[in-house]
């Protein structure tokens, strides 16, 4: 079974059919800007020595993350990874909490216990990633299993990189999901590199989405820099899963536009590759699309960009006011108490 390669989404009419009105489109644009802004600002804070440890960004992957998250329903859940800041942003995590997380402050979602994008607000339907890739895929499948057992019309979305696709967890998760036709959608952020390792040393086939055939479900390849195409494919897959149609593997093709993390200058990535993909910058692509297809005006653009700028300034200020965690909090929560179970998912 050959995978389907998704067409780009062209006109405003097609987009309307896919369920997005102009308000939604501007919201997507705003989320793209916030996503990139959070990571750019984070990078600066890191260089200023305000962020301990290491620092990762998802530059190049914003459309993929925002597009998928936009397609999720309010009760759906997801397990985004280190290139998927856009998912947190789109689901409504307040940027100041993200900066607090970066800076190891008490008000970050993990209260300084974990760093980077190793966080999530479970009230917003997101589960905090672990470093071990792609361990969150079986967990996402388990969420879908709960939905299936309870016959809830909810879908779980699990992310993984094309590099992490090599690990057993990806296989066990997809096989179980396929056998039980669970309501889960697998999103592969294929950014062509796993740290310094190119795809031909990671997997020996053309499209990772072809692997869906090994598990009895559909695969689709989509241009991950085209937020609308990503949205449409994710939406299709999510609604199919919701209707009992089983899993889909959506491969979003992008390029990781920076090094693996701040310390990595990506010397091993051919310059031309960066140049070629820079022309397909997800934000710029969508901005032009909005101007051409949705009459985005200079004023509107400025207003959105200005709003995002203010939001981020304010977020950094507020995060910086958040205290460092009290050393005494180290041992808090190693074990859960029964009260901890009163979270939205545990009702």
């Amino acid at each position: 079974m050959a995978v389907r390669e998704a067409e780009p989404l062209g006109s405003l009419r097609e987009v309307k059919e896919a369920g997005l009105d102009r308000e939604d489109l501007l919201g997507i644009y705003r989320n793209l800007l916030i996503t990139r802004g959070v990571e750019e600002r984070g990078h600066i804070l890191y260089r200023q020595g305000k962020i301990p440890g290491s620092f990762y960004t998802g530059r190049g992957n914003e459309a993929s993350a925002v597009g998928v998250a936009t397609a999720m329903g309010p009760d759906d859940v997801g397990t985004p990874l280190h290139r998927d800041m856009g998912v947190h942003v789109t689901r409504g995590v307040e940027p100041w909490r993200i900066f607090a997380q970066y800076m190891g402050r008490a008000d970050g979602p993990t209260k300084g216990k974990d760093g980077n994008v190793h966080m999530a607000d479970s009230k917003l339907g997101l589960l905090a990633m672990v470093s071990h890739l792609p361990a969150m895929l079986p967990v996402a499948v388990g969420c879908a299993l709960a939905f299936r057992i309870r016959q809830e019309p909810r879908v779980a979305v699990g992310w993984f990189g094309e590099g992490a696709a090599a690990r057993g967890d990806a296989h066990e998760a997809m096989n179980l999901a396929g056998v039980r036709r669970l309501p889960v959608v697998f999103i592969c952020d294929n950014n062509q590199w796993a740290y310094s390792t190119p795809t031909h040393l990671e997997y020996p086939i053309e499209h990772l989405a072809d692997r869906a055939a090994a598990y009895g479900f559909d695969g689709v390849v989509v241009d991950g820099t085209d937020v609308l195409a990503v949205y449409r494919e994710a939406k299709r897959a999510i609604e199919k899963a919701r209707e009992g149609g089983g899993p889909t593997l959506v491969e979003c093709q992008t390029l990781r536009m920076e090094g693996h993390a701040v310390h990595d200058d990506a010397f091993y990535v051919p310059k031309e590759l960066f140049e070629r993909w820079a022309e397909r910058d997800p934000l710029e692509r969508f901005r032009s699309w909005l101007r051409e297809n949705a009459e985005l005006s200079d004023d509107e653009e400025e207003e959105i960009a200005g709003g995002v700028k203010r939001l981020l300034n304010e977020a950094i200020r507020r995060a910086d006011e958040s205290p460092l965690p009290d050393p005494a909090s180290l041992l808090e929560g190693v074990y859960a108490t029964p009260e901890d179970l009163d979270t939205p998912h545990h009702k």
Partner: protein
Amino acid sequence: MAEKTYLQAISDGLREEMRRDERVFVIGEDVGVYGGAFKVTLGFQEEFGHWRVIDAPLSETAIVGGATGAAIMGMRPVAEMQFADFVSCAWDHLVTVAAKQRWRAGTPVPIVVRLPSGGGFSGGPFHSQNPESWFAHVPGLKCVCPATPEDAKGLLISAIQDPNPVLYFEHKHLYRRIKAEVPDERYTTPLGKARTHLEGDDVTVVTWGAMVYTAEEASRELDGDGVSVEIVDLRTVLPWDKAAVLESVRKTSKVLVLHEDTRTGGFGAEIAATIAEEAFEDLDAPVKRIAAPDSPVPFSPPLEKAFIPQVDDVVQGLRELAEY
């Protein structure tokens, strides 16, 4: 009250909890039609259906990782490893995801993993292990090792209702060999509390699982010597009941720590080290450990006998302590 085997007590406890709490479901290899390799879930699929008694593919990672996701979504999964040994294939999910998620991200993971453990029937290196010591070094997990039918039921229900990932080590050699009265009604046995299996004054044995019975037999052999043995059955290895152990040690001043798993780096070391540190002035003899020698579990009966601590070994250890 009715007399039940250890196995029946586990099975009944689980069935009752599934009847009472519809969030509870079972997932594992061959747990459905077959009722599990040891028949703990025999008849469950007929009663609860295919979606609460799930025959999983041969996929320990998917089983434990899947249970984790389902638990976070509000279910109370009880995952079965066909043999405890195979939990090594789910290790990463237990130590990386389940154990740390509450602490890191505030998300509790109320799963139970049932682990048929232990040797004594020529199961060989891959069907006889007691892996509790590995997990007892992982903050965030709980490790339960019942010895009696009554505890087996009460601890299982507590484990299911506990908001944390709980590894429930059920000793295969006790399954059909050990029978005792088990209350009919639902009850919980608290995690983290030891039980005095036998009261005594001269030497304390700290142990758990099948070794409780080995210690008991050994203690009987010492009756003639006038040595009175106290047996503390830990029941929960993580967190372990330090207070109860220290109390017994303060009474007897002599301790033997006994476990079926191998010695070096086994959890007995933690208990012995803690006693030696915190009850230093109360000890009249060094804390002695008896455990399996440092090798994999052998298949052939004479080797297995040399591996698993025997009544005679314990008798000798107790005598040495008594005479110290």
